[in-house]
C-alpha cells in the first residue's frame, strides 16, 4: 500500500479533475460535491504519510522510480524528506480549504473552476515530490496553466491583464531554469558519459566556480520570480488583487513556496560553491533584506486590504530567502517553518479578506471601521492571524522568524538587525490595519448589517487557527520533521564532490 502512496496523492487530484468533466454542466451541486470530496480524500490520504514517515531515516522516503523517457535520461522519480512532507501536507490542506471556501462564490462555470484548482494541486504536489529535474520542470510549468484560468476567468476587473502578466513573468523565469537544467545535464553527461536528470547523481558533480555561478543564476531567475524576490515581484500585486479568494490563497500559500523550495532542494545542493560564494550570498542577502523592508513599507501605504496582504507576502518571503542563504541549520530550518506558517497565516488573511469582500464588495480599508462590534468572531480570528503574521510569540509566525533571525545573526549582524526592523514594521502595518478596520465607531451603515462568519466559513478558518497555535506553542514536532532534512542540505554544502568534468 505505501509503495505507491506518493503517486496516489500526486495523481488523485488529476483523476478527480477528469471525473469532473464527466459531470454535466447543468449539475453544479454534484460538481461542487465531487470537487470537495476529491480534495478531502487527497488530504486524508496525505495524512497517511505521517505514521509511516521515519523522522531520522537518512535520505528520501517513499521513493518511487520508473523509467519514463530513457532516450534522454528522464525518469519518473519521486520521494520526500521532512521538508517536502511538511509542504505536501500544507498543500493538500490548503487546497481542500480553498475548494471548500468557494462553495458559494462561484456561481458560473463551476466545473472549469474546480477542475483548474485540482490540476493546480497535482502540479504543486508534483513540484514538492520530484527528484528528477525533468519531471520537476514539467510540474513546475504545469502549475502556471490552471492559475492563468483561475485568475483570468474568475478574477476581478483587470483579470485578463493580471493573468497574462503572471503567466509571462513566470514562464520567462522558468525558461531560464530550463536552460540551466540543460547546462547542468550536459556538463554531467560529458563528464560521465551517462545523461541523466536525477538530482542525486547531478549533485555529485563538481564544476568550476564560475560555471556553477552561471547555472546558479539561471536557476535563480526561475525560482526568484516565483518567490517572488524584489525586483522580480511586480506580477504579484496584480495577480493577487485580481485573483478570486481561493486563487489568492493558493498563490500565496502554495505557489510562492515553490520558489523557496526550489532554492533549498535544487540550488543549494547542486551549486554548493556558488551558493557559498560571497557574490551570491551578498546578493541574495541584500535582495532578501530589500524585500523585507520594501514590502513592509509598501504595506504601510496601502489603501487596499488585499493588496496589503499581497505585499506582506513579499516581505515575509524575504525572510524565507534570507534564512535559506544564511546557509546554516537554523536559517534553513527557520525558513521552512516560516514557509509553513506563512502558508497558514497568509492563507487565513486572504480567506478573511475574501469573506469581507463577499459581504461588502469592497476592499478599501477606509470603507471599514468598527467591525469588531459587528462581527466579533471575524475580529477575533483576524486578530490571531494578524498577530501570528506579525511574529508575536506563542503563534506560528514567531517561531519561523526567530529561528531565521538566529541563523542570520550567525552570518551577519546587519542581516539580523535589518530583519528585526522588518518584524517591527510588520507589527506596525498589521496592527494599523487592524485598528482601521476593526476598532473605532462603525462609520458606514452598510457595515452595520454585516453577518458574522457562517458555519462553513468558520470550518474553513478553524483548522488553520488551531495550527497557528499548535506550531506557536509546541513547535517541536515540526522541528523534528524539518531539522534532519535541513541538516542534510547543510551537510551537502560542504560534502566533497567526486566527479570532475
Amino acid at each position, binding site marked *: 500500500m505505501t509503495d505507491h502512496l506518493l503517486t496516489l496523492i500526486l495523481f488523485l487530484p488529476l483523476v478527480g479533475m477528469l471525473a469532473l468533466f464527466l459531470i454535466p*454542466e447543468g449539475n453544479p451541486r454534484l460538481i461542487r460535491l465531487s470537487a470537495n470530496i476529491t480534495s478531502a480524500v487527497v488530504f486524508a490520504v496525505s495524512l497517511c504519510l505521517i505514521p509511516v514517515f521515519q523522522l531520522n531515516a537518512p535520505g528520501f522516503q517513499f521513493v518511487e522510480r520508473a523509467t*519514463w*523517457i*530513457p*532516450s*534522454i535520461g528522464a525518469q519518473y522519480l519521486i520521494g520526500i524528506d521532512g521538508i517536502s512532507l511538511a509542504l505536501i501536507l500544507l498543500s493538500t490542506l490548503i487546497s481542500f480549504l480553498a475548494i471548500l471556501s468557494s462553495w458559494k462564490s462561484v456561481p458560473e*462555470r463551476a466545473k*472549469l473552476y474546480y477542475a483548474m484548482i485540482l490540476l493546480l494541486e497535482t502540479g504543486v504536489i508534483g513540484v514538492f515530490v520530484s527528484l528528477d529535474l525533468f519531471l520537476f*520542470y*514539467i510540474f513546475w*510549468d*504545469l502549475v*502556471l*496553466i490552471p492559475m*492563468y*484560468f483561475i485568475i*483570468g*476567468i474568475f478574477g476581478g476587473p483587470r*483579470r*485578463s491583464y493580471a*493573468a*497574462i502578466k503572471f*503567466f*509571462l513573468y513566470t*514562464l*520567462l523565469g522558468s*525558461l*531560464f531554469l*530550463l*536552460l540551466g537544467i*540543460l*547546462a547542468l*545535464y*550536459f556538463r554531467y553527461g560529458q563528464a560521465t558519459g551517462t545523461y541523466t536528470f536525477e538530482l542525486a547523481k547531478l549533485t555529485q558533480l563538481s564544476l568550476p566556480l564560475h560555471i556553477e555561478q552561471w547555472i546558479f543564476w539561471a536557476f535563480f531567475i526561475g525560482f526568484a520570480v516565483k518567490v517572488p524576490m524584489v525586483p522580480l515581484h511586480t506580477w504579484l500585486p496584480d495577480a493577487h488583487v485580481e485573483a478570486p479568494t481561493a486563487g489568492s490563497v493558493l498563490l500565496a500559500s502554495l505557489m510562492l513556496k515553490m520558489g523557496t523550495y526550489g532554492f533549498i532542494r535544487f540550488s543549494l545542493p547542486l551549486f554548493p560553491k556558488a551558493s557559498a560564494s560571497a557574490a551570491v550570498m551578498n546578493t541574495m542577502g541584500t535582495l532578501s533584506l530589500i524585500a523585507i523592508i520594501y514590502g513592509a513599507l509598501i504595506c504601510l501605504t496601502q489603501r487596499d486590504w488585499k493588496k496589503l496582504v499581497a505585499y506582506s507576502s513579499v516581505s515575509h518571503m524575504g525572510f524565507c530567502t534570507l534564512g535559506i542563504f544564511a546557509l546554516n541549520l537554523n536559517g534553513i530550518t527557520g525558513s521552512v517553518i516560516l514557509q509553513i506558517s506563512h502558508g497558514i497565516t497568509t492563507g487565513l488573511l486572504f480567506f478573511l479578506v475574501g469573506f469581507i469582500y463577499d459581504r461588502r464588495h469592497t476592499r478599501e480599508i477606509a470603507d471599514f471601521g468598527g467591525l469588531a462590534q459587528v462581527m466579533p468572531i471575524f475580529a477575533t480570528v483576524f486578530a490571531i492571524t494578524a498577530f501570528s503574521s506579525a511574529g508575536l510569540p506563542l503563534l506560528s509566525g514567531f517561531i519561523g522568524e526567530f529561528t531565521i533571525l538566529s541563523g542570520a545573526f550567525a552570518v551577519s549582524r546587519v542581516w539580523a538587525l535589518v530583519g528585526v526592523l522588518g518584524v517591527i514594521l510588520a507589527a506596525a502595518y498589521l496592527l494599523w490595519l487592524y485598528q482601521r478596520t476593526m476598532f473605532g465607531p462603525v462609520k458606514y451603515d452598510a457595515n452595520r448589517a454585516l453577518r458574522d462568519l457562517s458555519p462553513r466559513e468558520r470550518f474553513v478558518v478553524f483548522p488553520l487557527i488551531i495550527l497557528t497555535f499548535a506550531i506557536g506553542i509546541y513547535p517541536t514536532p515540526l522541528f523534528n520533521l524539518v531539522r534532519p532534512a535541513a541538516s542534510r542540505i547543510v551537510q551537502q554544502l560542504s560534502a566533497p564532490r567526486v566527479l570532475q568534468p
Partner: protein
Amino acid sequence: MTARDYLALLPPLLMAIFGCATLLVDFVTRHKRSLVLLNVFGLVLMAYAYVRQWQTLSAHGPFTALQGAVTVDSLAIFTNSVIWLATAGLLGISYRYLEFVEEHRGEYYAVALFAQCGMYFMTASVDLVALFIGLELTAISFYILVGFTRRDRQANEAALKYLLLGALSSAFVVYGFSLLYGIAGSTALSTISLAVRQRGAFDPFVLLGILTATVGLLFKISAVPFHTWAPDAYEGAPTPVTAYLSVASKVAAFAVLIRILWLDLPFARPVWEPVLAAAAILSLTIGSIAALTQDRLKRLFAYSSIAHAGYILLGFVAGTPLALRGVYVYLLIYAVMNFGAFAVLASLRRHGIFGDNLSDLRGLSQSHPTHAALFVVLLLSLAGMPPTAGFIAKYFIFAALIETGHIALAVIAAVYAAISLYIYFRLVREMYLSRAETREPIAASLGVRLSLALATAITVLLGVFPEPLLHLLAGGSR
C-alpha cells in the same frame, strides 16, 4: 525493376492513380462523398505502403529506385508519414468548408494528391532533376489550391502573389542546382557531395551554388527575409489549404534542406550555417513580433509558423545527432499541432461569418466547451508548454543549442518562446475571458471533430510519453 524498386515507387504511384481516379469518378457522379471515400481508401493503401517500406528499411537498410534517383531512407519515410497525416487531415476538414464556400469540386482532392506526390519526390529524391520535378509538381499544385475559391478576389490575389514569388524561388533553386551540377558533372547528390568536398566550401562556384539553392529553399519554408508571400497566401487561401500549405509543404521543404545541406553537404557547413543562423533569428524575431498584433487569425498563424521555422532552423545550426532527432521531432509535432489548430479555424467558417478574425473565437468556451478545451491544448503545445508535445519539440532545440554551447541563441529562443505564449493566449483570452457575440454554431463536422480530437490526443500523448517516438528516431537518424 526489382520488388524494392516498386516498393519505393508504390506511394507516389498510388497518389497519381488515385488522383486521376478522383477526376474520373468526379466526372460520373455528383456525390462528393464518394470522392472522400475513394481518397480514404487511397490513404489506407499508402499507409500500407509506408509500413512495408519501413519494414524493408529496418531489415535491409535504405534502398533506391529509378537508377538511384529516389531513395527510401528514414528521412524520406518519416517526413512522408508526416505529410500523409497532413493529407488525411486535409481530407477531414475540407468537406464542410468547401460546401460553405460553394466550391466543392473533385479537382480539389485530385490536386491535393498530386501535391502529395510532388512532396514524395521532394523528400525521397537524391538526384537534382527528380528533386526539382518534385518541387515544381508540389508548387504548381499549391498554386491551384491556394486560388481554389475562384470567385474570391482575395484568393485570386493570394494565388497570384504565391505564383510569382514561388516561381522566383524555383528560379533560385534551379540556378543553384545548375551550378552544383556544373561542379560535379552529375546530378546525383552523392557525386556532388564528393565534388564539394574536393573543391572546398569556399570555391566561388560551390559558394554561389549552395547559397542560391539555400535561398530558394528558404523561400519554400517561408523563412525571413524570404517570407513575404506567406501571410498573403495563408490569408487568401481556403483555410484547409492554408493548413496543408503550412504543414505539408513546409515539412517537405525542410526535408530537402536536411538532405542537401545537413546530410550531403556537411563539408559546406561553414557556408550555410551562418545563413541559416541569420534566417533563424530573423524568422523568430519577425514571426513573433508580427504575430503579436495580428487580429486576422490566418495571418497570425502565418507569422507564428514563420517563428516555428526559426526554431527548426536553430536545430540546423546546432547540427549534432541530437539536433537532427530534435528537428524530426519538431517537424512531426509542429505538423500535428498546427493542423489541429487549423481544423478549429476551418470550423469557424459558418453561415454569415468568415471566421477569419480573432473576435470570431469570442465565447467559444461557453458555446462549444469541448472544442475550446481541445484548442487550448493545441495552443499550449504551439507555445511549447509542458506537458504537451510542443514542449518536447522545443526541449530538443534548447538541448541541442546548449549541448553545442550556443548559449546566446538558446536565450534568444527562450525569450521568443515566452513571447509566443502571449501570441497564442490572445486566442485563449477571446475564447475563455470574453462573451460570445453570435449564437451561430460552428461548423464542426465529423471530419473536423475527428481531426481535432486526433491532433489533440497525439499532442498530449507525445507530450507525456515521447519515448516511443524518440526510440523510433534513435534507430532511424543516421
